[in-house]
């Protein structure tokens, strides 16, 4: 695909500098994000990991410009982020394909809105991307006619066709069965390695996180802060066979130690529900360890 949009591999550096965000009014007001800082490097895949409810979706909403930060700053390639823009596209936690549009209409929505190119050209690009993720035969189907995995792939394509500088994926494979999930990870990592668009990938699964990441940002529990940043120096292209390599297992062990520490901290300082949430999120991982 041509990169006629905003992006190319060399741009898309996002600097997130001590941002904060609270929700609620009066006594119910609570800080969800506090002094959170990290950087998305151009052409790199950063994975944000943290237990459910820690504020990952909130961070995406702030980065996308859907909600406003209270303090701190967010910039992309040196320019402060103000409101939503085509340079930062989000693939939401659950499908957000427009149900009233066919697959083709969904995928071409961005280019059509930006204008400037004729529709045959746009559809050509869309079709070749759809074919790449195995959806070429489904161009005239409505989203409800597709399986969960197909919807997720369609959404990837719908964002990718705009060549954004940054793509943000909010737990995109959550709720898919294990087989589909693995297949989706493979499609996703291939698309990323081919296009090298700066990516932020949010997940609560440690294995998925390390398999995909160039850089792993581990969040603390509420109020969410960056606990640790780990550089993952596994070679690319990534293969599932790496899941048994010594390096991979070492990364996993290190990450789990930190996550376990967080769970303990939450246990000694947090409220009962907060601890319960945290332990539930990581009990499975702890068992495996």
């Amino acid at each position, binding site marked *: 695909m041509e990169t006629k949009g905003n992006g190319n591999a060399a741009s898309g550096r996002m600097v997130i500098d001590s941002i904060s965000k609270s929700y609620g009014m009066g006594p119910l007001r609570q800080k969800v994000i506090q002094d959170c800082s990290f950087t998305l490097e151009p052409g790199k895949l950063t994975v944000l990991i943290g237990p459910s409810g820690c504020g990952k979706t909130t961070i995406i909403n702030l980065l996308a410009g859907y909600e406003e930060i209270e303090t701190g700053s967010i910039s992309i390639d040196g320019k402060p982020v103000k409101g*939503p823009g085509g340079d930062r*596209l*989000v693939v939401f936690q659950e499908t957000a394909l*427009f149900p*009233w549009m066919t697959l083709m209409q969904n995928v071409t929505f961005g280019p059509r*809105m930006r204008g400037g190119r004729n529709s045959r050209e746009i559809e050509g690009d869309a079709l070749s991307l759809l074919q790449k993720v195995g959806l070429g035969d489904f161009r005239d189907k*409505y*989203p409800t006619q597709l399986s969960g995995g*197909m919807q997720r792939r369609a959404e990837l394509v719908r964002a990718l066709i705009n060549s954004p500088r940054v793509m943000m994926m909010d737990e995109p494979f959550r709720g898919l069965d294990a087989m589909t999930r693995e297949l989706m990870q493979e499609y996703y990592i291939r698309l990323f390695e081919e296009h090298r668009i700066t990516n932020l990938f949010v997940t609560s699964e440690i294995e998925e996180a390390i398999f995909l990441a160039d850089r792993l940002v581990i969040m603390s529990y509420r109020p969410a802060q960056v606990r640790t940043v780990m550089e993952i120096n596994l070679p690319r292209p990534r293969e599932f066979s790496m899941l048994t390599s010594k390096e991979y297992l070492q990364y996993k062990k290190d990450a789990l130690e930190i996550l376990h520490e967080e769970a303990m901290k939450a246990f000694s300082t947090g409220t009962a529900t907060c601890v319960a949430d945290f332990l539930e999120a990581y009990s499975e991982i702890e068992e495996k360890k």
Partner: protein
Amino acid sequence: MSGRNKNSNSLGKLGKSIFNISFYRGVVAIIASLIFWEFAARVHLPVIGMIPAPSAVAGSLSSLIFTGYYWESWYVSFERVFSGFVMAQIIGIPVGLLMGMSRKFRDLGFPILEVLRPIPPLAWVPASVIFWPTPQMSMVFVTFLGAFFTTVLNILGGVSNIDIRYIRSARSFGASNKDIFWRIVLPATLPSLCTGMTVGMGITWEVVVAAEMIASRSGLGFLTWRSYVAGDYPVIVIGMISIGIAGYISSSIIRLLSGRATPWLKII
């Protein structure tokens, strides 16, 4: 993947064959009840035997059907229903959209709506006969009310239930306010509008028939009522069945249009 496709096709066929079985069952049920009804009338069963027999109704119908009076009643009622209904959509859709999209309009309009809505349209008959210069206009107005509130409330509900993520992604993709209105808000609200129209169409027929009995000298409602006053019992039955058929035709039209307007809902 193609397996899934085939699957949904064969499900479609299954649906059709069920429809056929249902259809024939329906025909059998109607014929059986006609036979029972004829029998009941002939042997003078209590209550149901008081209704004129199908044969008597058929006899009456065979002469009524050639009168202008009968068909004019159809025409007049249809005209009232559709004028009122179309007016209700023309005014109700923008009002619902405005209230759904603007907090200010919602704050202003909602209390008024909620006070007026519980008043049954028929309670408006006396007032509207006084206010409107012609009986036709007052009939249409009362019919209008029957569909208006349903349309406004359904659109309002539809707009406020739009998934915020649709609007957010559209914004990110560079859609202007105008694009968001025409390509997101409107299609997202369409299913609620269709529901509102189906319900509204049912209400308009109820309203128009009752209003014609009270305050009009024409239409299917009046035809039925006049036959009662004149003691022409078979025509009462003809009037009732005609109203049923007219309502069915009207809601079929709405269903057909709804299906055309929301193709993405039909296939699941």
